[in-house]
């Protein structure tokens, strides 16, 4: 499988009145063709910002300070953020779906106007062909009576239906990569499952790679082939889904897994929360950022700076000094 996207040492910061927020602090990952990866972390750990940086959609006061985003071997960060090269990538080559389906569609334009806009813009279709293709896309994402509903406004659609429209829009130009930024967070549980199945199904059919950004390990468990765990702007553990779920090695990942309820547990087993809060991204300690919340910490953690990602087993990497190898679920 060929490498489609490779992000090297990406750094994105926000200059605010109280200081520089290091939202993304040296993140590296890669994505192969037709692969589904998961990017997991709690709120404010930089997962969304890292994805917006890939698309160069960061607005002031945010700024991409350094790193590379190699897409088909070409560094996207070399292009000006609003230049024609970047605009040709967005939507056509790399498409994005956002968290809030209720606000991701323009309320004053019809679904047809919004669905055909990209087809006309990127695929150079005429209005008529674009409309036919839009109806086809709506059918593809499971919207019934597309012929009639296409002239409707976003407020005629429910949250789940709007997210389906967003998926149709994102996939309309056959992108190479689809970035789904918490695509199901705002939806109820049954709709979540339906949409994830739909997305998996569509990306397989269209041979698109998928990046699922989420705070919910359960969401990626079923769909992703590899998972990256982020904490305080950095990746702390990466590996195959099997590695992460069966042999988690970073204390943070272990903590995350301990707070997922399981059906096969003994009755009365308590969930173990990760105590404390993530560090303030303005005042980042030189040591491991997870240190105060960690239950595996050793003396070395207090003296040495945060280690680099080190392999523990083949393709499984962690950023930790402690020996967690004896951890058993």
């Amino acid at each position, binding site marked *: 499988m060929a490498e489609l996207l490779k992000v090297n040492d990406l750094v994105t910061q926000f200059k605010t009145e109280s200081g520089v927020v290091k939202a993304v602090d040296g993140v590296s990952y890669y994505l192969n063709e037709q692969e589904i990866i998961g990017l997991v972390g709690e709120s404010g750990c930089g997962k969304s910002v890292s994805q917006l940086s890939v698309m160069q959609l960061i607005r002031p006061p945010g700024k991409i300070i350094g790193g590379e985003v190699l897409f088909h071997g070409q560094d996207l960060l070399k292009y000006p953020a609003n230049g024609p090269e970047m*605009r040709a*990538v967005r*939507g056509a080559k790399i498409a994005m779906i*956002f*968290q*809030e389906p209720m606000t991701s569609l323009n309320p004053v334009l019809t679904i047809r106007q919004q669905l055909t806009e*990209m087809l006309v*813009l990127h695929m150079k279709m005429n209005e008529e062909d674009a409309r036919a293709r839009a109806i086809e896309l709506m059918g593809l994402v499971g919207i019934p009576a597309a012929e009639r509903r296409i002239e409707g406004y976003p407020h005629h659609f429910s949250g789940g239906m709007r997210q389906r429209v967003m998926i149709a829009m994102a996939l309309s130009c056959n992108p190479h990569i689809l970035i789904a930024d918490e695509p199901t967070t705002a939806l109820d549980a049954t709709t979540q499952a339906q949409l994830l199945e739909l997305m998996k199904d569509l990306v397989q059919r269209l041979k698109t790679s998928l990046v699922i950004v989420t705070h919910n390990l359960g969401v990626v468990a079923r769909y992703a082939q590899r998972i990256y765990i982020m904490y305080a702007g950095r990746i702390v553990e990466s590996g195959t889904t099997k590695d992460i779920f069966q042999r988690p090695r970073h204390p943070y990942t272990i903590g995350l897994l301990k707070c997922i309820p399981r059906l096969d547990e003994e009755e009365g087993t308590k969930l173990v929360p990760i105590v404390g809060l993530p560090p303030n991204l303005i005042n980042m300690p030189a040591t491991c950022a997870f240190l105060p919340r960690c239950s595996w910490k050793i003396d070395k953690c207090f003296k040495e700076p945060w280690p680099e990602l080190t392999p523990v087993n083949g393709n499984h990497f962690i950023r930790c000094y402690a020996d967690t190898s004896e951890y058993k679920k």
Partner: protein
Amino acid sequence: MAKQAIINEFREAPPRVSEWQRFFRVFFQRKIVLFGLIILALLVLTAIFAPLLAPFSPVRGDMAESLQQPSWKHWLGTDIQGRDSLSRLIYGSRTALAVGFGSVILAGVIGVGLGMLAGYAGGITNMIIMRIMDALMGFPMILLALVISAILGSGLLNVIIALSVATLPGYARVMHGLTLTIRENDYILAERGMGASNIRVMFMHILPNSLPSMIVLITIQLGALILAEATLSFLGVGIQPPDAAWGAMVADGRRYLLTHPWLSISPGIAIMLVVFGFNLVGDGLRDALDPRLRGIL
């Protein structure tokens, strides 16, 4: 099959109320709005058909008939130069509308464009544009229009330019604020994520979303502009005689207020009615277009 009929009723979609139907229902709900609309319709019709409606020429008078009392021949009497007051009133509607729409279009297009650009671009562009607008706003509207009229000279076009400059910051301010709110919406980010250019985002997404508010502002401004034109003409820097303008008619009639009060009062009433009409329609539009008032019928 009665059961089936009931089940079928559930399946049928409820009647759809289109946006336009909803708009008209709310708009015409208050009778007073209809009254405003009738005033404005009469004004527009009068302006269009002025040559047919006016019994005499608005500019040529007969000195022999100077300062006549109202009669069957001259319904509103004649002025000092013997011109038929009713005819001048009818032709004055053309001036009022030309100034109103002329300056709204001129100032509206430039103001909305500048406000949107400043709000969307932010940074130094925003600073420069909005500080200039603030400076313009510092002057009272009439004073600024007076100064510009004095520099450019009088006449219809110059009055339109003067009033446009004076009202420009209003549009820019409102549009600037609207742009700042709208551009933070997720759909703008989504749109940029789909590869839309800045120009496209501004004109396809920000502008249509700001139109409801701008339409209300423009309608209310129309009334204010007609009043401002009357003020300028009253002060003698607006429309020059012999062209008919309501403000100038009020000013001319002032000297004969005790003996021939209708000369000043009739154009005064015309100005009042028209401004009233625009404000009523503006209120009606706001009720019908403001999303916060939606759903209240």
